[in-house]
Structure formats: structure tokens, C-alpha cells
């Protein structure tokens, strides 16, 4: 006897903000009437931390013993033990997205050492002979958009062999000069990063120019130029932030995320 359990959120993009209600339906589909011992639905938001081997010792990192921090948790019983008729059954639900006490709902973030994740979990308990069913569904929490508009402050940069940091033999480097600017130092996460880069001159042909988004872990990497780029021509910088893997700069007592 097959039964499928599914959680469907009302919002297609699954993005919610604090104070809103996470609404949706639990969809049960089975061919014959189904006996169960109760269906429950829980919402959970956790921060998983992992210690970086850079900051702590190897052993501590290995045992990554930092306890997950719970941001939100609630549980409701959807149905008492009983019977579900055959066919498709939809049970609507709604959770208000409110924190308890002084906790803050951080934005969803998937990083290497920090993971902030929100999920819905639906469990259906059944008799001993049949396995319990459960279903997970992640949803995404975004912060309330900032009210005050930050005036973008453009920044110019120049890259020459001298400005490079992690090089060993500065003398081996060919001569080059790259100038450019970014339109803003503080970026709105939902908007792309924009700017321009100009290759003024270079002794050797350029193979490619890449723009790297650096956060705790290496993330997006976009190639800007290909092969011998025309000298003196401005090349636009345009990078869409991968939303799942980036979040606004965040600093809390326990952890911080920055770019």
C-alpha cells in the first residue's frame, strides 16, 4: 500500500519574512483508507556551527562539538489518531513566524562552517507494522528590507604588481595596470554587484580576468574577460549574489558571517 506525504507551501519561492505566516497544505495521497496514530507538524530554525580548523585546534574541529542554536521551534498536531479516507487529502496549516524572547531570526544561509536553516517537518506515526512517515521541507527566511536607503559610495581601485598581497617573488610578475571601480561598497543583497574594470596595459596577453566573491568559504567565481582583452576598454562587473549561499553581513555573539 503506497502512501505519499508532501508539504506544499503556498509561496512558490518559499521565502518568508519575520512576522509573516508560513502557510501551506499537507498533501496525503493513498489509494485505500489509511490507519494512523496521529500526524504532527513541526517548524524549526537552527544555526549549525562547525569550528574552523584555523581558529581552533584540529581535534576540536574534528569533534565539532558546538551545540546547534535553536532560533525557533513550534509543534502542532495536525490530526489525532484515526483514519484517512482513500484518495487525496489536503490539510491546511499555518505557522506564525515569531521568535520567542529576544532571539533574532537570521537569514537562511548555507555556508561551510555556518548553516542557518529553517524547515518544516511533518510526521505521521503509524502502527508497529508500518513504518512511520515523515517529510521535510525547507523554507527560506529573509530579513525585512532595510528601511533607510544607504547612499551608494563608489570606490575606485587600482591593481598593479605592487598592490598584490600574497605573492612571493614580486619581480617575477609581469607589469600590468588595472583600474576600475565598484559602484558601491555596501551592496544590497538582492541587487547585483556592479562596477567596471579597465585593463590599461599589460606586458603579457591576458588569459582571463576573474571576479571572486570571497566569504568564509570560496563561493561564486565569475569570469569577466577572455583572452587578450582590448586594452583601455572598460569591462563591466556584474555579479548576481547566489542567494542561498550569501547573506547580509551578520555579526552575533556566537558567530559571524561576512563578505
Amino acid at each position, binding site marked *: 500500500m503506497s502512501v505519499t506525504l508532501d508539504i506544499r507551501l503556498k*509561496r*512558490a*519561492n518559499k521565502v518568508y519574512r519575520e512576522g509573516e505566516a508560513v502557510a501551506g497544505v499537507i498533501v496525503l495521497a493513498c489509494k485505500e483508507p489509511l490507519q494512523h496514530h496521529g500526524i504532527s507538524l513541526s517548524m524549526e530554525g537552527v544555526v*549549525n556551527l*562547525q569550528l574552523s580548523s584555523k581558529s581552533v585546534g584540529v581535534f576540536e574541529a574534528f569533534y565539532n562539538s558546538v551545540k546547534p542554536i535553536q532560533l525557533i521551534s513550534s509543534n502542532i498536531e495536525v490530526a489525532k489518531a484515526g483514519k484517512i479516507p482513500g484518495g487525496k487529502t489536503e490539510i491546511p496549516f499555518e505557522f506564525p513566524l515569531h521568535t520567542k524572547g529576544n532571539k533574532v531570526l537570521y537569514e537562511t544561509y*548555507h*555556508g*561551510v*562552517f555556518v*548553516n542557518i*536553516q529553517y524547515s518544516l517537518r511533518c510526521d505521521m506515526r503509524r502502527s508497529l507494522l508500518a513504518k512511520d512517515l515523515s517529510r*521535510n521541507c*525547507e523554507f527560506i527566511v529573509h530579513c525585512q528590507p532595510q528601511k533607510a536607503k544607504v547612499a551608494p559610495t563608489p570606490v575606485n581601485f587600482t591593481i598593479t604588481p605592487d598592490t598584490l598581497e600574497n605573492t612571493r617573488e614580486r619581480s617575477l610578475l609581469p607589469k600590468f595596470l588595472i583600474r576600475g571601480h565598484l559602484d558601491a561598497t555596501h551592496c544590497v543583497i538582492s541587487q547585483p554587484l556592479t562596477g567596471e574594470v579597465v585593463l590599461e596595459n599589460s606586458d603579457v*596577453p*591576458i588569459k*582571463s*580576468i576573474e571576479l571572486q566573491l570571497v566569504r568564509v568559504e570560496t563561493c*561564486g*567565481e*565569475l*569570469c*569577466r*574577460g*577572455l*583572452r*587578450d*582583452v*582590448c586594452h583601455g*576598454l*572598460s*569591462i*563591466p562587473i*556584474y*555579479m*548576481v549574489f*547566489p*542567494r*542561498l549561499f550569501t547573506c547580509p553581513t551578520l555579526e552575533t555573539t556566537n558567530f559571524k558571517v561576512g563578505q
Partner: protein
Amino acid sequence: MAAVQWRSRGRNYEAELQRCRPEVALVEFGDYHPLKPIMVTDTKTRHGARKGSTSSSSSSSSSVPPDPLSSMLDGTDPLSMFAAASASETPAISRSASAGDLGRKRKEKEEEAVGADFEPWSSKRGEILARFTTTEKLSINLFMGSDRGKAPSPGSSAVSEKVRTRLEELDDLEEGSQRELLNLSQQDYANRIEELNQSLKEAWASDQKVKALKIVIQCSKLLSDTSVIQFYPSKFVLITDILDTFGQLVYDRIWSMCSDPRPLPDSFTVDDVNDTAKETCLNWFFKIASIRELLPRLYVEAAILKCNRFLNKSGIQETLPRLTAMIKGIGDPLVAAYTRAYLCRVGVEVAPHLKDSLNQNFFDLLGTFRQIGGESVRKQLALQRVEAPEYLTLYSPAISWILQCIAYRAPEPLLTEMMERCKKLGNNALLLNSVMRAFRPEFVADRATDFIGMIKDCDEAGFPKHLLFGSLGRSLACADPPESERLTILNEAWKVITKVRSPRDYVNCAEIWVEFTCRHFTKREVNTILADIIKHMTPDRAFEDAYSQLQSVIRKILTYFHDFSVLFSMERFLPFLDMFQKDSVRVEVCRSIMEIFIKHQLDLTRDPVILNAMLHICKTMHDSVNALTLEDERRSLALLIIGFIRMVSFGRDFEQQLSFCVEARATFCNLEPVLVQLIHTVNQLAMETRRVMRGSHSRKTAAFVRACAAYSFITIPSLSSIFSRLSLYLLSGQVALANQCLSQADAFLKAAVSILPEVPRSISVEGKLRSSESFLLDFTNNFLAMLLVVPDHPEHGVLYLVRGLLNMVQDYTWEDNSDAKVRVYVSALPLLAAMGQETYVYSVPKVDSNETLYGGDPKFLSEINKLCETLIGQILDHLKVLGRDEGTRRQGALAFSLFGVLLAHGDLRNNKLSQLAVNLWNLSHKHGHCEPRVSVRTLEFVKHQAQQPDMSHLSDTVQRLTLQSRT
């Protein structure tokens, strides 16, 4: 059976004719007409009038029953219905069609939105594929297939399983196992790409969206590879096909997601799109934004540019400039130029109104132009051993396309600005070429002199100048430059063209300029150009490789020169034709000339120049006919030649005309239809002579018409079709008789009779084998009618020809079980009866027929009667035979027709004849096969006849004719 005694009824044709003339009575034109639709207008109109305002005319017209033919088809005929259906196929139906077809169809529709005068990409496609080819080996480098052995990255355990597989798949896009296909020929390459296109569609259909994306990304990566650079434009064409497919698939998918209750209208807005669709669409854009390499990211985003419509109103408007700017990041100028072309192509298709980014693309292109001559390009060319001029031509499809998009319906000032910008770049030939090709011909034509100046200033080493002049010529072929400049333009252009060394380049360019020359100049200039082309193409038989161009030269000349006397007075025209030495091509050229001649030569001609030239051309066509020539081909060639012969007329110079026919016969002996036409022409000539002489020939004209007869007489036997021969013999005999050439007429008719036994029992008519019987019957009837006026030959017996014919008919092996022979006998009876009259029903002026020769001699009459009796005897015998077998129906019909003959031509005062008639009537009604209506009518006719004077005896006969009683 006792011999029947035949007596012909005496006829007074004059009186009969008088009687037959209808009495002059006013015919009342009643309303009734059988072809008029039945109208019940009366009642209806009144009805409508009572109703009030409805106009009576409309109601009466509505009562007219529709034409039965059109009503069957319910208004529209099925063919146009299909056409209409396919044109306006509802999206809902087409959705189920395969995505590829659908995409194409939709694409066509969009190109329409741009306007019919915009030359679509699809037409360029083939041209590019044909032009940019290579014999070198190609390779495809694909990084595909998934390598799943990777260890999960630390920390990702927290990420849900689904996300992780997605991520891995995306990683595979860039780091999957590498597959490299080497040593591909050009065709292999195209096949591979097509395979990829197919697997893209399959992957999509089987819901493997990620794989589909992978394929697309890998394909667009191929575009950054410029090895075997000569092939790059074609590669671009092949790969952008895949991108188009992909773009269409994504668009269709999202479109179908929103078409749940009912399909989206074509002009949907963002508000009509539901959230799921928006989210999916957004996901695609995010996925594509995270492609690491620039080129695939650009191409794939451009491919799904149209999907921006689902997300927001201004999406396309914002994306286009961004993508345009991003192209600056591409280092290789060729790759960049083609990327721009693709962006423009998509842009024009999706948002034709957004012109700015098109212009920006072009300006950016100009900005990077110095790269073309740069160090790295030069190195690359040296490595691949490609010459700079060839390299530059690789750009022209891309640049031309961009310029075409810009120039389409662009205001004049913009074009001028573009031109100025190009000028500033030091008269770059490549740009100049594209400008001339892409801008409106009128624009180019107005500034033709400027352009020539610019072309002259161009660097000789770079782009070949003949290409520049070719492009200019193409514009001038459709638009006229100011009149005062035309000659200078031609001179300047030709000065350069004539210096082109390679015959191929030369003829390509010259061919284009021929049109301009023909348009504006006289035969003198065209002649000069022809001479120049001959001069260039003759050495080393260079013309052999340029037939299509040379043919096009001829075509262009023929479009503008319809006066053939002018055309053939060009000295070099015929020598030019001599360059077509391959038979098939030569015939084709001749054919096209002939077609124009027949279409445009309206007056008869005797111009020796035309005649000579046309004879030459026709002879060429004729000489191409051999045993292997198809029947259709022969027929069409013959038709063309006939068309020419009909246009030849020497006016009153009949002898010249005849000698022309003699010459033509010698020249075109292999095409029978032409010979037939010649015989007709000569016969016509003889009749024309007769008309001019008003029927009485002088000695000279008599000799001439005899010569005409002789011409026909010796030409006819060379025809293979027996019926052509027969009918021509008959016709020529008639013409000879009309011209008082008695012995010639005799000879024709004798010849006709003598070949009768050769008529095969079945002949092929339009490829099908059919019995020749009906044709033969027709002919003999015709022939019999002619024989009435042919006087007997003094040296032969009475009715020599009639007897001859009847003997032949008797001996001819007719089909088994056929009445044909007897039918001939039945139809011979009226002839014989007519021959016995004192005055014949018709005669030939100035020819004495038998009536005059014999003057009603009783011996002659008894000969006739004897002959009739023999014939009737034969017929009756045959009737008897039929009665024995199962042929009662045929017996009845035959008996009835003999009865008719007796009634009309026999003298029924004679008891025996009248008894025979009654018997025949009874016989024909015996088995009830007779049509009662015909019988009734016949009876009525007989009764009517009986009232005529001298015919009262018929009333007795009528008494004895009984109608079959119907049971």
C-alpha cells in the same frame, strides 16, 4: 438475301435549307432561364418590406440559392481552408506539436512582426553555411558526463540531499569528464552538433533539465574555440541553432506553466504570470548567472532573453545593454563580433523596438576594431596559415547582420552618422562592405560616388576590392543613383573590376554590375561589358567554372532587353553564348532566351539578324535532342521552336517564307511537332496566296502553290505518328484542291488511303495505350466528307477513291467483335447518295466536281447505286451475324442508324427500300434496347416529313412503324 435496290432520294438542298431556316418570329425573352438560379424573390421581398427597415434587396439576395458548386464546398474550398488553418493554428493545438517545429513556427511569426522587408536570419543561415567551409579537420571538446566519485565537501551534510545533488550536477557542468572528438570533417562536425541538438531535445523531453543546460553550456563554450578559423561563421550558425532551440524550450515550458486555466494571450503582461512560473523562470536566470565562464554565460542568457517577459516589464530593456557591455570582456575580436551578432539577432526578435543596444553594439564593435590588426590576431593567423583578406571576410556575416538590424527602418540621419563613424576609422574596407550590404540600397545609391571614393581610399592589402564593388553593385542593382553620376560610377567601377585577376572573383563581381549596366545604359555599354567578360573568361577555359554566373548575366540582360533586334545587334552576344560549352547549360540558356522571345516578341518579324540568331539558338536546342531525351523535354523544346517559327513572317514575300520553311525543316528534322507546324505553315502560305490572288492563280502563283504542296507531300512521310500523317494528308489535300492542284490533291488522298492499313489497332495517347478505332472512324468520316468534292481521275475508274477507301476498310484488320467496319459502310451511304444529286451540297470554287464531270450520267448513277447495294448487303449480313450471337443491343443500334440513313437519303417511294426501312425499324425495336424517346422523336420527324411536298409516300410508311408497347 435478295439484293436490295438502292435509289437515292432526290434532294433540293436550296429548298431544304429554306425550310430549315426558322421562321422569323419575335422571341420573347421570358424570365425563365435554365441557368438562372431559381428565385422566390416575390414573396420574400414583400415579407421583408412588411417587417420594416430591412432592405428588400438584401432579403431577396439571401433567398437566392447559392451556386451548387460553391455551396458544396461550404464557402471556402478545402485547399484554402487548409492553408488558413495552418496559418492561424491556435497555440493550444500547436503546443502539442513537437517543440522544435513549434519553435520554428513561432519564430516565423515573430519575424513577421518585424516586417516582411526584413531579411530574416533563416535566409542568411544557408548562405553562411555554404560559404564558410573548410577541408581541415575539426574537433569538439566537450566536458560532459558526470563524475560522481567525489567526496562530499565538509559541512554540506547540513544541506539537504536534493540541494546537494543539484549542486553536484552544476559542478559537473564545468568539471565533468572531458570528451574530445578529434579529426572531424566538416560534415561530421555538423552531424555531431545536430546530434547534440537532438540529445538536448531528448533530455528536455525526459525532464533532465540540468543535462539540457549542460549541453547548451558546452556547446556555447565551443564558440570560444577559434581553431580552424575559416569554419567559425558556420560553427556559429550550427551552435546558435542549438541555443535557439534551448531558448524556445525554456520559454515554452514557462509559458505552459501559466496556461493552466487557459493559454496566455500572446500579448500577456507580468501580472498574468503565476508565482510558480515566475520562480522557475528566476531559477533559470540564477542558474545561468552562476555559469563561471563569460562566453557561455553570455550566450545562454541571450538565448533565454525572451523569458524576461515573465518576470518584469523592463527586463529585456535592462538586460540588453548589460549583455552588450559584457561582450567587451571577450578578447578575441571575431568571437566578440559574432556574440554581438547573436545578441542583436535575439534582440531584434524579442524586442524589435529597442534600437539603442543595437547601436551600442555597433559602436562597441568599432571601438574594438583596432584589435583586428593586433599582435595576437596576427600570430593566430600565422599559426593557422590564413591570409588577412580571408580572415577579414569571416567578419562580414556578423557585421552585416548587426548593420542590417540597425539599418532596418532607421532614420536617414542615423545611417549618415554610422557612415561618418566608419569613415573615421580610416575607411576600413570590412566595415564599408558591411555598410553597403546592410544599408538601404537607396541610401547607398544616393551616395554611390562617395562610396566609390571611399573604396578607392581603402587599403589594398586588406579586404579585396572586388568584394567592395560587388556589394556596391548589389545596392545599385535595386536602387538608382542620381542620373548625372551613373556613367562615372560605371566607369570607375569597371576600371577596378576589369583589373581583377582571378576569373572567379572577376565574374562574381561582373555579374552583379551587369544589372546596373542593363538598367541604365544602352546596348553599346552592355556590349562592351560582354566583350570584357569574354576576354576574361576565355583564357584557360575559365568559363567552365562560372556557368551559373554567366547564366545569370544572360538572365539579367534578358530582363532588360526585350527588343530582340537590339539584343542580337550586340556584337558580343552570340560569342558570349558560345562560352556555354556544356550541353545542358547551353540548352538551358537557349531555352531561357526562347522563353523571353515568345513572351515579349509580339510582332511578326523578318529581321535577318533576329532570324539568324534565333535559328542558331533553336538549332542548339534541337541538336541537344538525342535518343535519351525525355518526352517532356522534347515537347517543351518543340513548343519553344514552334513559338519561334510562328513569329517569322516575310509578309508578301511568300517564296522567301517557303524557303525559310525548307531551311527550318532541314534544321529541326528531329522534332516532329516542329515538322507538323512547318507543314501547317506551308499550307497556310498556300491559302494566303490563294487569298491574295482572289482564287485565280497566275502561272507563277500556281507553280508556287504546287511547290507548297510538294513541300508538304515530301515532309509528311517523315512523321512517325500515323494519325498526324493521315490528318495532314487530308488537310494538305484539301489545300491543294482549294488551289486547283488536282493531281496533287489526288496524290495526297491516295497516299492517305494507302497508309490506312498501317494504322495500328492501339496507339498511345498521353502515355496510355488506347484503341485507335474511334480515331480511325473519325478520320474516315472526315475523309468521306472530303471525297464528295474530289473529281474522279480521268485515267482511273468511276469513284476510284471511294472504292479505294472502302477496299482498305474491308481489308483492314479491325478489332474482333467490332462494328467499326460496318459503321464506315453506313456513313459511306450518305456520301454516295450525295454524289448522285444533280447539284452537290458543297463544292470548291473553280474546281469541277463529279456533278459537272458526269452531268448526272445514268451510268454513273447506276455505279453509285450498285455500290450502295453492295454496302447495304454487307451491313445486313453483319446484322444477321449479330443476331445470332449475343449482340442484340449492337444489332438494334446498328439497325437504327441504317434506318436513319435510309430515311434521310433513300428514296422510300421504292417499295423494297421502304419495306427494308420498316424491317430495320422493327429489328431495332425487337429486343427493346431502343431509347423510347428517340423513337418517338423519329416518328414525329417522319410524320412531319410526310407533310412536305413530294414526301406524301412517307405517311404509308409511318403507318407501319409501330412504337414498342411498354409493358
